[in-house]
């Protein structure tokens, strides 16, 4: 990969690492509470549907999804290299495309809410 591409893949990785560090544990805690039958108010259908009906919330949710998936994809790419997989271009293309596809799907679903 050309040196000039580095900031483009690394920027969202750093941003995503920060976003997931701050948010992912507490968000998992919310779904875990729901899993144990103590559904937080915000996960009730009407509440969440109304919340994600607002455009700022949609943009924020899509941004969190994109940054989380991108940073996970980038880290997995590095991990593949650490584990001895040397087909970096193929691995990187597959993982970044997957992250973009997941983010695009979230945009489509959010637009329908």
């Amino acid at each position, binding site marked *: 990969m*050309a*040196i000039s591409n580095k900031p483009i893949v690394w920027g969202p990785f750093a941003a995503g*690492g*920060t976003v*997931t*560090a*701050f*948010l*992912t*544990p*507490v*968000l*998992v*805690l*919310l*779904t*875990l*509470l*729901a*899993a*144990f*039958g*103590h*559904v*937080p*108010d*915000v*996960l009730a*259908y009407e509440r*969440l*549907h109304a919340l*994600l009906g607002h455009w700022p919330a949609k943009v924020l*949710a899509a941004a969190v*999804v994109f940054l*989380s*998936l991108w*940073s*996970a*994809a980038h*880290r*997995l790419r*590095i*991990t593949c290299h*650490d*584990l*001895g997989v*040397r087909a970096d271009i193929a691995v990187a293309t597959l993982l970044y495309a997957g*992250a973009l596809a*997941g983010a695009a*799907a*979230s945009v489509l*679903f*959010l637009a*329908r*809410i």
Partner: protein
Amino acid sequence: MAEGMSRKPYLRREGLSWIFRHPRYLRYMTREFSCLFIGGWTLWMVWGLKQLADGPQAWFAFLEYLKSPASIVFQVITLGFAAYHSYTWFKLTPQALPIQIGEDFVPGAAIAGAHFGVWAALSIAVLHLAGAF
């Protein structure tokens, strides 16, 4: 120095055994493997957005699916890996964001500590706003 790279690079044959050669390597791989769970959980939540868009019944089915034993195990493991990622990420902030005031650098413990403090406050705020307590 990409232009100075050999055209016949030396490829070391490495298995996975290096991971267990030092506790530091094991901690490194644990941190790196957090991406599988954070990424997997995020994709799952993208599916949750689809269920939410599909209507109340689909969303209710999603909430029910969260309660299956396998998904509870997955969420518990994800919570552990996600918290470990946060810990390692904030622990590195003094190196990533050194702050200089005048001649002196702000102590690393203060920078990392501030991040841990904001993380705790933000988590409590999100739980409270979400109506968890």
